[in-house]
């Protein structure tokens, strides 16, 4: 009797689970709630897939940061032009899983696949020859083999790189100009984009210290890579420790790691966070500004080029201050004295190359040649 009951229960559960999954596919096929899909009057896709696809990095499409920025650009283009769109989340952060997700997108009929993130360099290197009819937009990286032996961007791949060092530079400069002297940088993984943000931040602080005529060591920076892009209590504790020991503002440059830093800032008095990738002002009242890359815009432009018959395959676009690809968010900024006019001056100066900003990501901090800013590197 009990066995039968158990069997029925198991069956009922599995049926409801399958029904549940079905729902995910319908509602989530476009990655958005149902109303959006009906608004755009998109023709129903033949399979379960879509013409435009995005394969997420380690984060999710609502990480309020990197993946979300890219996803919003794709979504914007798709809804404006009646294209079907969908995202795929790899089961884990390995090359095999990324390739599998790309394969799924191709099977679903994707014509253009957007892959945000440095970690896609190897998967896209393989995918671009495996699926020659599919176009790839790779953000933050250029395809190469696993051992970095061969770099090759096929005609069906477009790489987009950002001058993160410029955005980081502006953030560091603005922070010191705004009166902060004890800064912090908490990055996610030490991937090139994060490193460039960090090094730019240091150089910006240095430049501002020089202009203000500050003494050597008056500006100090705590510097750390947390090792991943997740929120965790350990990071909240670390950030709280920094704030406790005097750090006034932390540049949180690691996806959801930022939420841990914001939690720490909220629990302290007059402590601030600089957000990253997209304008994160709505995340917390402690976000003073954000170092942004125009992820959405660049995805949008790439798609526009593809559909306009101007596919720029095989090339690498570098987006920097010259083409409004990077900057810091000022619309909702909470700077105390750093004004929009100050920002305009700074932006112009960076654009004109008044500052020499080292864009290397494979050097040590000591090679940046900082004289006034004292950097304390925190291991682990």
């Amino acid at each position, binding site marked *: 009797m*009990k066995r039968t009951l*158990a069997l029925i229960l198991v069956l009922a559960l599995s049926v409801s689970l399958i029904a*549940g999954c079905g*729902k*995910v596919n319908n*509602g*989530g096929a476009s990655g*958005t*709630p149902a109303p959006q899909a009906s608004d755009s009057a998109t023709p129903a896709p033949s399979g379960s897939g879509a013409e435009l696809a995005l394969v997420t990095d380690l984060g*999710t499409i*609502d990480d*309020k940061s990197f993946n979300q920025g890219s996803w919003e650009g794709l979504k914007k283009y798709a809804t404006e032009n009646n294209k079907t769109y969908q995202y795929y989340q790899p089961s884990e952060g390995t090359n095999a899983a990324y390739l599998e997700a790309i394969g799924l997108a191709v099977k679903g009929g994707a014509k253009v696949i957007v892959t945000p993130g440095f970690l896609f360099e190897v998967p896209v290197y393989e995918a671009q020859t495996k699926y020659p009819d599919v176009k790839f937009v790779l953000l933050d990286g250029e395809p190469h083999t696993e051992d970095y032996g061969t770099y090759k961007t096929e005609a069906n791949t477009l790489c987009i790189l950002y001058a993160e060092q410029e955005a980081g530079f502006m953030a560091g400069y603005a922070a010191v100009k705004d009166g902060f002297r004890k800064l912090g940088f908490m990055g996610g993984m030490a991937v090139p984009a994060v490193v460039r943000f960090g090094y730019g931040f240091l150089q910006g602080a240095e430049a501002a210290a020089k202009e203000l005529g500050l003494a050597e060591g008056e500006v100090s920076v*705590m510097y*750390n890579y947390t090792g991943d892009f*997740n*929120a*965790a*209590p*350990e*990071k*909240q*504790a*670390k950030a*709280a*420790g*920094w704030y*406790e*020991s005097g750090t006034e503002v932390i540049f949180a440059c690691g996806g*959801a790691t930022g*939420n*841990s830093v*914001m*939690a720490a800032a*909220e*629990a302290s008095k007059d402590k601030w966070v600089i957000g990253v990738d997209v304008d994160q002002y709505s*995340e*917390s009242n402690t976000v003073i500004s954000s170092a942004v890359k125009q992820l959405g815009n660049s995805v949008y432009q790439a798609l526009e080029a593809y559909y306009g018959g101007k596919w720029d395959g095989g090339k690498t676009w570098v987006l920097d201050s010259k083409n409004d690809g990077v900057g810091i968010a000022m619309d909702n900024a909470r700077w105390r004295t750093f004004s929009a006019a100050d920002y305009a001056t700074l932006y112009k100066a960076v654009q004109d190359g008044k500052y020499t900003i080292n864009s290397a990501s494979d050097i040590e901090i000591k090679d940046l040649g900082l004289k006034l800013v004292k950097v*304390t590197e*925190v*291991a*682990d």
Partner: protein
Amino acid sequence: MSTIYFLIQQTMFFTIPLMVVALGGMFSERSGVVNIALEGIMLMGGFCSIFFINQMQDTLSGQLLLILAILIAMASGAVFSLLHAYASINMKADQTISGTALNLLAPSLAIFMARMIQPSGVQQIAFNNTFRIAKVPVLGDIPVIGNMFFQNTYITTYLGVLILIVSAIVLFKTKFGLRLRACGEHPQAADSVGVSVYKIRYSGVIISGALGGLGGLIFIITTSTNYNASVAGYGFLALAVLIFGQWKPYKVAGAALFFGFMKTISATYSTIPWLQGLNLSGYFYKMIPYIATLIVLVFSSKKSQAPRAAGTPYDQGAR
């Protein structure tokens, strides 16, 4: 001195959720049901209560909202744990498998539901933290002690201490506690004198569910600005705390304190000059709690205090 106050305040943020969840696990295991579903229960408790806060924070705020959320967290954790209770008590399922199933189910369910019910369709549930108490009136002014325990804190900290004391009394000074322990040690004997093993085990699991759910809420409130379907493995860590504490309330509290302190040190040693001077890697502090657990297990395995019948389904017919 302020560094020490800071360390203690921060340690509390780690310790209290660990302790509350481990105490929950203690009730379940003392009744004879191994509950490795604590992680999943924390997740569900956190999910329901944070969603509640998210919905209500326009009309309510501060301590009243937090207290209501606490009740929701406990209720939802208890309900979720019923699945485990039913499978492992009525159906006599393998308790490890049932617990694992709940652990796998919880994060997916939380993400799925968050995306379904939130108009924005995102998986994170944001909340405004209006619950922090900068300074408890009167008590916060006491020198030293006030700085340590009554500033920059949450009511959940005191609730945790209260739960510890009540747990110890219930377990060792009441009829219910005696029966609970009997069911965990020798359910057949308990049954022979008229104790309903099923009922007792159900209550044990439900208590663990309520405390687990509460632990999930405390954990998220104190360390993040949104709920993102994760409690960072603290449910499993609580199991280690439970074993390290040898299933005894005050020892569990001590173990949680030890784990919490080590976690704090490993995260913040970079800002403490005298610890930096020791020149030890942060990984070292991270390892200590686990090494200590292993050592305790090695030395106590001969006379382990684990409830003898924990993990074995009770079969009345086999008496």
